[in-house]
Every structure is written in C-alpha cells, then in structure tokens.
C-alpha cells in the first residue's frame, strides 16, 4: 500500500517535472535565443523584432601611448597574446605584474581563463571549453546566471526600450555587459540626481 502511494507520488512528481521541462523547452523553441534575434526580424510572425544590443567585437586594449594626433593607441588582444604563452597561475588581476594591472576585478572566484579563451584571446570560452565570440557574450554569462537569464528572456531583468506591444513596433534590450562590468559585475552605486520638491517637505513657494 505504502509503496503504491509512494510510487504514485513519485510518478506524479516525475510527470510533473517532465511537463515542466517540456514547457520550458517549448518556450525556448518559440522564443528565439537573444543572440539570434538581432540579425533578422522574424518573417513568419507579424510581430516586430526584439533586438539586443551587442558589442561590436573583441575589445581593444589601451596601451597608454598616444598617436601623433593625440588619440589613444589601442591594440588587439592577440597582438601580445599570440607570442605569450598562457599562464594558468594568473588567476586574478592581482597576479598580473605587467599588463592589465588597472583592471578592477570582483567577480566571485572565477579566474581570467575561465572566460577568456587561451587558444584565441580575441574570443571567449564557455565552461566546456568551446569558443564563443565577444558579441555573443550573453551565452557565456548565462552559463552561471541562469535565473537572471530566464528573467531576462521574460522581460523581468535588464530593461527595455521601444514597444511593450510587439505587434505595433520593435523593442530593444540591453546586453548583460551594457549594465554590468564583466570584471566587476555588481551594479554600481549611484547618486540620486532628481528630487521633486514635494510641498509637504518645504516652505511653500507662494502665499495663498
């Protein structure tokens, strides 16, 4: 008797879980991955596109030198990193004694090479070692920050601009790294700039 009940409960739970998984899969199927929505508006659906801001490509490193016209000299990551073998002992910025010393780093216990691709420094790497381009950086973030990514896909994280109603117009959304510095992702502290002068708080401006 007891075993029947338990088995029933387990099968119910399993079925329930399976159903949930199906749901999330179908959601994933009907809602294109953010990295794929940027390129083309959907042709089959009458809805406007949701486009996600993307970094142009790999970042450029500021060397500190100036060009003749006063502009900064910037170089690609691979300019140095093709000739220097990766050093797995360098885990955080503190370990670097030559370059990148000014970078602020506060991102849990991940090391540089958790995200930077030691085989091609102009790209990033996922946890399984596969390569991912800088414009697709959200794929990398989403590996660890699943709940945030899920909320993001449902408009509950990251904000938006444009149309709430996609049948009437397009929408643009931020990329993870638009708001979060990947090396120190905590949202920065801010200073409030605007305060309504509530009449309850101040002397009245006019006599009545």
């Amino acid at each position, binding site marked *: 008797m007891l075993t029947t009940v338990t088995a029933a409960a387990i099968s119910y739970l399993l079925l329930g879980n399976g159903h949930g998984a199906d749901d999330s899969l179908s959601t994933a199927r009907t809602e294109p991955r953010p990295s794929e929505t940027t390129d083309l508006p959907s042709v089959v659906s009458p809805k406007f596109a949701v486009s996600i801001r993307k970094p142009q490509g790999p970042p450029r490193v500021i060397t500190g030198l100036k060009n003749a016209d006063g502009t900064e000299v910037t170089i690609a990551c691979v300019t140095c990193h093709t000739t220097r073998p990766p050093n797995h002992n360098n885990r955080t910025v503190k370990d670097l004694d030559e370059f990148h010393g000014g970078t602020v780093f506060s991102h849990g216990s991940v090391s540089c090479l958790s995200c930077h691709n030691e085989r091609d420094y102009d790209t990033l790497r996922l946890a399984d070692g596969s390569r991912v381009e800088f414009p697709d950086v959200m794929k990398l973030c989403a590996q660890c920050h699943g709940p945030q990514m899920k909320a993001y896909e449902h408009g509950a994280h990251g*904000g938006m601009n*444009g*149309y709430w109603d996609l049948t*009437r117009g397009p929408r643009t959304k931020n990329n993870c790294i638009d*708001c979060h510095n990947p090396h120190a992702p905590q949202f920065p502290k801010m*200073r*409030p700039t*605007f305060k*309504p002068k509530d*009449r309850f708080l101040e002397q009245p401006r006019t006599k009545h």
Partner: protein
Amino acid sequence: MIADDNSSPERQADTDKDWFLPVVDQPSTRRTALKTAGAALGLAAFGKAISPLWSIPENVSVDEFLQQHYKELSDNDKQKVFQRLEAEAKDAYGAEVTISDPKPIPGVRFGYAINLSKCNGNGACMEACNRENNHHRGVDQSYIRVLEMSKGSMDMEHGTTTYDHTVPQDDKFYMPVQCQQCENPPCVSACPIEATWQEDDGIVVVDYNWCIGCRYCEAACPYHARRFNWEQPEIPTDEVNPDQGYLSNRIRPQGVMEKCHFCLHRTREGRAPACLEACSTGARVFGDLNAPDSDINWVLKNKRVFVLKEELGTQPNFFYFFDS
C-alpha cells in the same frame, strides 16, 4: 408668535403685495424692522455666495467655461477643444503641440510591476516622468515618489523621499510609488463631479477641464498618488513635450488634480511608459494582464509579488516583486 404672523386670512385678502413681499405694507414695528433686516442680509449673503457663477473667471475663456465633460464631447467638439488647447499652449508656452485622445486598446488591461531587488532609488523614473508629462519645473513635479525604506518593513508610511546620499544603502530598499490604477479606486468614488474615472484598460484618468480642484480624491488615495497643481506649470519652450494626450500629459491648468496615467498617450500606441524606458536598473515591467504570455504575467506567475496596502481592497494593477 403665530398671531403676529402675516398669514392671517384677512391680511391675505387685503392685498396681493403680501404674497410677494411679506415685509412690505406692514406696521413699522421693531419686529418688522428686524425681519426686513434679516431678509436683506440673507439675500446679500446668498448673492455673495453665488457671485462666482455670475461672471466667468478672468483666466478662463467662454469656450472653456462652457465646455462639456469629456465623455459628452462629440468628435467635432473634441477637435475644437483640442485646437483651442493647442492654441493656448502656443500662446502661453510658445510650443507647437499636438493633442489627441488615444482610446483604450480593446481587450487590453494594463499592469505594471517593479522589482524591488533591482530598484536602487536613483530616481531616473521621477525625472523622466517630469519631462514626459510636462510637469511644473518650478517644483520638479512628478507622478512618482521613490521611497527609501528600512529593510524588514513594508509600511510605506515609514518611507522617506528626502534621502540625499549614494544609493543603494545596505540597510535600505527603494520603492517607487505612483498611481496603482486600482480596480476599485477610492479616488473615483470620492470625486463629487465625476471628473475622474476608470477607463476600459484600467487606467484612471482625469478630465482636467472638468475638475474643480476640491482635492477630495487626493485625500481619498491611500497611495498619495494624486497631485494638485498649485501653480500654473512653468516649462521652458524647448522642453515642452509636444506629443500630448487630452487625458494624460497635456499642460494642466492651475488648480486641478492630476495623476499618473501610465503614459497612456504612449502605452495605448504600444510604446513603453517613459519611467520604464528611463529606469537604469531594469526594475520595471509593463504589459497586458490579459495576454497570457506577456512579460507582466510571467512576473506574476513566477516571482514573489505583493501589492501595496492590500488590506484596503483597492485591488491595484500595480505590483511589487523580489527576485528571491
């Protein structure tokens, strides 16, 4: 007393004058004199009390004075009213504005949610509201108040708006409060002249030209969401938002109530409210409660959601939630 009264049958028969002015043609006793004085005083007081009705106030045109309630305006009337208001805006503010009255989208019920785990109290929403809705720049009016709250309390009455330091503070959370667009709005019930009402998409609106500024609605609102225009708004010409709605962000006259209208001149055309677009933390979620797969419904189904002052039974269409 009764014997002294002029209702005795022989007096009535005497003259018709008694019927019209019972104090005329009476013996000049002290009582008659008192009655006469009393009647004169009464008439004078009544005249004084209704004197505002005899003349149109200086700052109100005849057309405006005779304008009907928004719901009773025909399309033709509306065009005339909108043209008049556009001309007034040009006159007073030097700005070319367009006034329209977008209707509720059929089948849509608006809902708004704020993620209190994300909001950091920087106040960008308040500023965006001020700019979008042609608020008085002199007092930096806004439909939103961001309350700084102590962690552990949900009592908005203990929140403060005057904080002036780096945000967020570790022991605080930040709760923007604006009109909750209640299903059961106490402000609407309080209005003695039906100048405010709930539209089909849930937005509670005000006819600024019908409002008499009694401020009963302000007192009735448990969220302190209504604002009174103490002064004629001051707005620099180049800052006037020309995209205006009759029931939303057109420049309000002095002495009337106003409130958050979910930017209906934007949202009824499918666009996001100004405060949402301005939010730098992405804490705001807006959408159609009637669409099962909308963002707002995902939040309601998947997050820990609460409404402000639930115990009052106002049933807000405005929600607050936390991430975990």
